[in-house]
């Protein structure tokens, strides 16, 4: 058991336990805060995987923007549903059985493939992954078209969200 395995297992325990709290806790504001913990665990995983840029983006975009947006939405809509009645459907055991079945099937498939038990080779020192990522995003034989489409999508989502939520569009 090496040090990185111990870090991975601690991180996995953090992610799984906070994700379980997200889907089971009664108060929605607590669920949003547990989501922050789960997202932070995923950011640590990206750091272990040597994807430093994605770890930073995970903290800035997911925790800094998306989770805060969730907390604001919960605060704007909370008083109708807080602690009133059940937070889950009456037949909640059906999704639970479905989730466990899919998990067992996926684990069976993953463990059945011997190629998935490989470990990673060291990244060669002459490969600068951050520089490669930057060039891949804007070079013509790389991913410049998906990059531009994503920016148009973000603009459209921004305009759409402002229009829908502004309230004076009767």
């Amino acid at each position, binding site marked *: 058991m090496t040090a990185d395995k111990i870090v991975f297992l601690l991180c996995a325990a953090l*992610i799984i336990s906070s994700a379980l709290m997200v889907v089971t806790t009664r108060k929605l504001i607590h669920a949003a805060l547990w989501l922050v913990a789960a997202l932070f665990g995923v950011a640590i995983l990206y750091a272990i995987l040597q994807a430093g840029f994605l770890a930073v983006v995970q903290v800035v975009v997911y925790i800094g923007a*998306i989770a805060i947006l*969730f907390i604001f939405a919960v605060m704007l809509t909370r008083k109708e549903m807080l602690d009133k009645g059940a937070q889950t459907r009456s037949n909640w055991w059906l999704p639970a059985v479905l989730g466990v079945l899919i998990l067992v099937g996926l684990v069976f498939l993953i463990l059945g493939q011997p190629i*998935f038990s490989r470990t990673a080779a060291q990244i060669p020192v002459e490969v600068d992954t951050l520089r490669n990522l930057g060039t891949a995003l804007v070079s013509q034989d790389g991913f410049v078209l998906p*990059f531009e489409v994503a920016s148009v999508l973000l603009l459209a989502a921004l305009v759409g969200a402002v229009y829908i939520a502004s309230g004076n569009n009767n």
Partner: protein
Amino acid sequence: MSIPLNWYLILSAALFCIGLFGVLSRKNAIAILLGVELMLNAVNINLVAFWRYLDPAVMTGQVFAIIVFAVAAAEVAVGLALIISVYRRRKTVIADEIDLMKW
């Protein structure tokens, strides 16, 4: 890097299934979106793990993960705007009670 690839795959499968349970079992529309976020993160873990374990010199996995980030941000912004708009008109965020288009 002595961690086998299938540890990441099993962790991401577990996270995906927890998110699926949240989406299917919760009544509150915002809680359903929280479950969707968990599922998107599970997908991202898979993409980055495959990038690192197959060929780190080819950036396809990380670029795909960045596109998923952008789509998740767009989805959350529009989804929460819709929920707030519905809440303003119908005074509810329970997905079962938003049945205006049910015949």
